[in-house]
C-alpha cells in the first residue's frame, strides 16, 4: 500500500480584497494542482529536488504547498508577469514559513538561460480560458485567465523552453482545460522528447480540468 501523505492547504489570509483586484484568487484549479502534487509526492521526494520553479505563481498558494511538503532542502522560485503577484507569492510563502524568491518577468524570460538543466520541478497553472487573442494580458486580471485561441496562446510559449529548463530527472506539471486539447498538448510535448501522464482530471462547475505531468522519455521507459 502506498504511503499516502497529505499536503496541507496553505493559509492565504494575507491576500486582501485589494490584492484580488489584481491577482488570481486560489480556486479549484489551484487546489487540483496541489492534489496532483500530493499524489506524486513520493516520486518527487525520491528525486531529491533542489530547484522548484513555478511560472505564473499568482497568489503563491501552489508553490507554498509544495514547499511546505518538501521542506527547506530545496530552492523555491517563482515568476509572474504581475509585480503584485510576485509580492503576494512571497507573502503567502512567509505566512506559511517557507522562503520563496520571486522574479517579475514574462514567463521565464529573465531566468531561462541560467536555469538551463537545473529545474527539478516545474509548475504551471496557465491562463487557460478560451478568449479572443486581444484579451491576453489586457489587464492584471486578464493575465490570470485569458488564454486566447483554444486557451493555448500563453502556455504554448512555455512548451519550447521546458526541455532546456528541466534537469535530467525533472518533472513538469501543467493544468489544462478540455478546450485546450490536452491530447494535442501531449503530442507537442512528445515531439520535445517528453512522455506524459494525466495525473488527475476533475470537473468543477463548467470546467473539465486535468493535470498533466511530463518527464524526459528515458525516465519513464
Amino acid at each position: 500500500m502506498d504511503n499516502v501523505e497529505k499536503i496541507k492547504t496553505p493559509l492565504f489570509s494575507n491576500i486582501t480584497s485589494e490584492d484580488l483586484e489584481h491577482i488570481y484568487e486560489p480556486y479549484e484549479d489551484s487546489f487540483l494542482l496541489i492534489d496532483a502534487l500530493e499524489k506524486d509526492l513520493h516520486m518527487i521526494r525520491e528525486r531529491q529536488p533542489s530547484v522548484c520553479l513555478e511560472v505564473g505563481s499568482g497568489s503563491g498558494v501552489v508553490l507554498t504547498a509544495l514547499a511546505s511538503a518538501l521542506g527547506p532542502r530545496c530552492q523555491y522560485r517563482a515568476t509572474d508577469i504581475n509585480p503584485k503577484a510576485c509580492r503576494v507569492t512571497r507573502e503567502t510563502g512567509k505566512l506559511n514559513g517557507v522562503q520563496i524568491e520571486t522574479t517579475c518577468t514574462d514567463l521565464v524570460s529573465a531566468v531561462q538561460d541560467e536555469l538551463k538543466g537545473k529545474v527539478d520541478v516545474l509548475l504551471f497553472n496557465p491562463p487557460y480560458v478560451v478568449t479572443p487573442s486581444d484579451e491576453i494580458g489586457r489587464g492584471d486580471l486578464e493575465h490570470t485567465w485569458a488564454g486566447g485561441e483554444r486557451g493555448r496562446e500563453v502556455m504554448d510559449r512555455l512548451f519550447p523552453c521546458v526541455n532546456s529548463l528541466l534537469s535530467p530527472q525533472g518533472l513538469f506539471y501543467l493544468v489544462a482545460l478540455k478546450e485546450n486539447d490536452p491530447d494535442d498538448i501531449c503530442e507537442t510535448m512528445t515531439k520535445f522528447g517528453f512522455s506524459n501522464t494525466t495525473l488527475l482530471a476533475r470537473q468543477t462547475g463548467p470546467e473539465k480540468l486535468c493535470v498533466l505531468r511530463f518527464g524526459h522519455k528515458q525516465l519513464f521507459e
Partner: protein
Amino acid sequence: MKLITHNMLTSKGIKNVKEGFPLKIQADEVKNVDIDFDQDFISKMVPKLDWNALIFAAQCVGHKEDLPDTLPEGYENDEDLLRKLHHILLEVEVINGCLECPETQRKFPISNGIPNMLLNEDEV
C-alpha cells in the same frame, strides 16, 4: 532578492544582448536575514552556481569578505567556506536598488526584494 537568485537572472531577453550576465547590482537597501545552515544543501547548490558571477555580486553588495576568487577543490568538506557561502547566498537580501545589464546598461528596479525584469515591447 537573494544573491542565489541574482545568480540566475539575465537580461538576455533584450534584443541583440549576447549574454546579459551577470547583472550589476546597485543596492540601496540591504537586509540580513537568518536562515538555518544546511551543509548538504549548500554543497549541492555549489556546482549549479556561476562562481564568478557570485563573487561579482558579493562585491557589488559589499560582502565579498574572504570568499576565494575561484572555487577550491574539496569545498564539500570545508564547513567554514560553506557557512560563508550560505550567508552570502541566502542571508543577504537586496530590498531596494536596481540591476544593470552589462551590455546595454538598461536598469531593472528591485523593490521590496523583487527584481522587475519586465521589458518594453520595443526592447524584445
